[in-house]
């Protein structure tokens, strides 16, 4: 359960990081107009998409290292009463 909490804390931290990453004020810093382009792509677009990708990568890293819940969840076997 301790590791579980650990992952939760990390993900909450990532959530806050994302809030900063996509905060209008921070995004505004990269709002440098159409003329300045990096690898042919406007800096604003580059920042948003790369920032987004990095955030997803970090979430993945935390989520994949999280322990699996050992509690078995009910398999969706459906021996349904067919009432068609």
């Amino acid at each position, binding site marked *: 359960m301790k590791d579980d909490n650990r992952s939760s804390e990390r993900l909450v931290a990532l959530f806050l990081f994302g809030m900063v990453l996509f905060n209008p004020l921070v995004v505004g810093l990269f709002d440098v107009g*159409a003329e300045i382009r990096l690898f042919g792509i*406007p800096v604003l677009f580059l920042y948003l998409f790369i920032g987004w990708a990095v955030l997803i990568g970090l979430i993945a890293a935390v989520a994949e290292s999280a322990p699996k819940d050992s509690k078995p969840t009910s*398999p*969706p076997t459906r021996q349904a009463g067919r009432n068609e």
Partner: protein
Amino acid sequence: MIPGWLIAVASLGYLTLLFAIAYYGDRRSDEGRSLILNPYIYAFSIAVYCTAWTFYGSVGLAARSGVGFLPIYLGPTLMFAFGWVVLRKIIRISKVHHITSIADFVSSRYGKSHVLGGLVSVIAVIGIMPYISLQLDAISASFNVLLNYPELSNSGSAIDLPLFGDTAFWVAVLLAVFSILFGTRHIDATEHHEGMVAAIAFESVVKLVAFISVGVFVTFGLFDGFGDLFARAAAEPTIAKLMTMEVVGAQWAPLTLLAMLAVFCLPRQFQVTVVENVDENHLNKAIWLFPLYLLLINIFVLPIAFGGLLRFPLGTVDADTYVLALPLAEGAPALALFAFIGGLSAATGMVIVATVALSTMICNDLIMPVLLRFAWLHLSEKKDLSGLLLAIRRGSIGFILLIGYLYFVLIGESYALVSIGLVSFAAAAQFAPAILAGMYWKGASHRGALLAISGGFLVWAYTLLLPSFALSGWLPAGFVERGAFGIELLKPYALFGLDGLGHISHALFWSLLVNVGTLVVVSLLDRQSMIERIQATLFVEVFRQGGTAGVGANIWQGSVSVSDLRSMAERFLGSERTHEIFAEYARNKQLDRPMAGNASGELVQFVERRLSGVIGAASARVMVASTLKGEGVGLEELMQILDETSQVLEYSRQLEQKSEQLEHASSELKAANERLTELDQMKDDFLSTVTHELRTPLTSIRSFSEILHDTPDLGLSERQHFLGIIIRESERLTRLINQVLDLTKIERGRMEWQMSDVDLAEVIDHAVSSMHHLFEEKNVTVDIRQPETIPPVRGDRDQLIQLAINLLSNAEKFCPGGNGRVEVALESGPKALTVSVADNGPGIPEHEQENIFEKFHQVRSDQTGNPMGSGLGLAICRGIVEHLGGRIWVRSKPGNGATFFFTVPFVKQ
């Protein structure tokens, strides 16, 4: 231009394939080899979030406001980072309580309230309606573009033409049939629609591939990669403006928040994320796979938008249709058809899941409670209600699509795709405060939630829905421009003068303000009923209760018979399924006899939960309550049980802490006990040694006295000899007793110390001279080495003499006769005087050196094996030295004599 029959065949072919997948998925699940039991399918099914609105509308929005479309996808990314905390709890709660929809969730949390469940259902239907009509619009509009390009491509929705009205109508009918086939094939207690989920996941793949194909075609086919495309776009001043935040405005943050809330509050998202979830662990992958999906599907939005703006003169083609128009204009009709199929995927996926979710709500939380409450007698005559349930759900699906179509015909035209989608988002967001507060705040009350959701909904309707009616001519246009009743402050797009935010942000601000404010204030002033408090505790503490929610089972104790319960369940589940449920219960409980008589509280609760999986928590409760004979255990009592349970949990946590402390204390006690045992052992040893030591001289005194007594004719010399022995033994006895007394006095602190400044050199001289004759007798030489001046030490002179004598006599005892040699040395240290007494006797073995100062520890002579002293002398020495604040120790090498050292601190200056 693509012939109509080809489009129709492709569409129907695609839908048939979809149905085949769904059918296969259901088959597999019936066989117990589930198709959707993996996290990837789960993540793809959540991507039903991307509708036709994403597929067509994102490009349209990007063409107007650059990156302004992104918050809709960044919000879910952030929310899914939070997913571990929030979504996992929602999923756990829903599994434990067999939640079937978002309305069920809210109603269940707030005391299984019908009113609340009904309200949420109504709001969901009204709120999602525009969204569904948007999908119909998108399908018919894209069909139109494909069929008639380039003639009609400048108008996304052309309702003026009767043909298109018909197209949308037929689309609606087709989708209704589809949803019914997917979602309501049978009534099922687990409420999983595996086939539907499999089909939805497949659709997500199709729309992603289709959109990326168009994006690659535009970026690398029409242009020479991203660099070329952006360079040419930047050259156009109107497009260059889209590469800044200026066009986005103040919408950015509010839209992010809106999307965050919508991604779990939209009924269809709740359906796929929570209700259709088969394994909580799938969330681990989904929380990054789903955002990754969103990222991928959005990469080419800007390139397509800019490509369209560059390719088509301003205003000739609706930006919402660029995805289709660009391939068509550039002579790639096959790609356009594929893109159309992608859009169809996006739209049908949304409509199917949304209608299934909404129909479940309408059935479980709106119609059934009413039927059960007001027409119970009538319903009770029916043996099997599962048919009725299916009929209600199917009817609901038809109804939803019908009014979706009507909305499309009457209102939809006046809005761009994106605004309609956002209106629905804002409606769904009204559920968020009640859900989130419900999961983390036990105090959130039923009345609070009811008023909060109603209030938020009314504000939403006033600021978003009514204006859309006004813009469509249903209400006077002045309503928007001058406010209700002509009051400026009540202008729906600028309530109380709040202006310049954008309609959606404006509505979101006011509705959430009213919503959250009402929830908090009313809840704080409210008193919760018992059932509310029970449900609140069960929801908030779902992880603490081990996920079983076993408390509260006693409420139904002994109040309903098993056969009544069985027949009640049969009405909803059918006899086969009911039989299975009862068998499952018996299996879990390992009952070998068939159940009879009154049902146990647990069984009733088990059945209620299963039933709630079919008809919702509120209805299931009414059903079970109606079969009760008596009152059962009162809610008051139940509450008490619940409180007790929480207390027990609390106590057990405290106990755990206490037991840790106890463990610590007990290990200390154990050590102390060991020490005591040791001491006890020592005391026993002491006593036995003392008596032993006393007995030896006593025995010899007695035996010699007896000889003297029994033989009166003993010679004088012998008589003298025996008497001499008796005297010596008596002296030894006296000495021994004195030593024991001294030792005990020292040890118990009873010794009277005459402390004074003592010249230790004089003490040593005194001791040596008092033992002079002993040394001479044994021919032992004594050397004393001492510095010229010795500062005085603090001590008891008599005791110090005793100490010196003890050590000297010890040395004398071990010295070899004839050439014995004892050296006494005094040495000044910084703080204390060190005295050493060395002999040239046999020495002390290494292992004895430690113990030599213990009481009665006797070093046995090598020659005779007999002890050579009482074993108390050195113990007394140690007692004296330690009392004076010094130290005593020995150094010895066997064969080379032994040296005893002791220190006595100087008088403090």
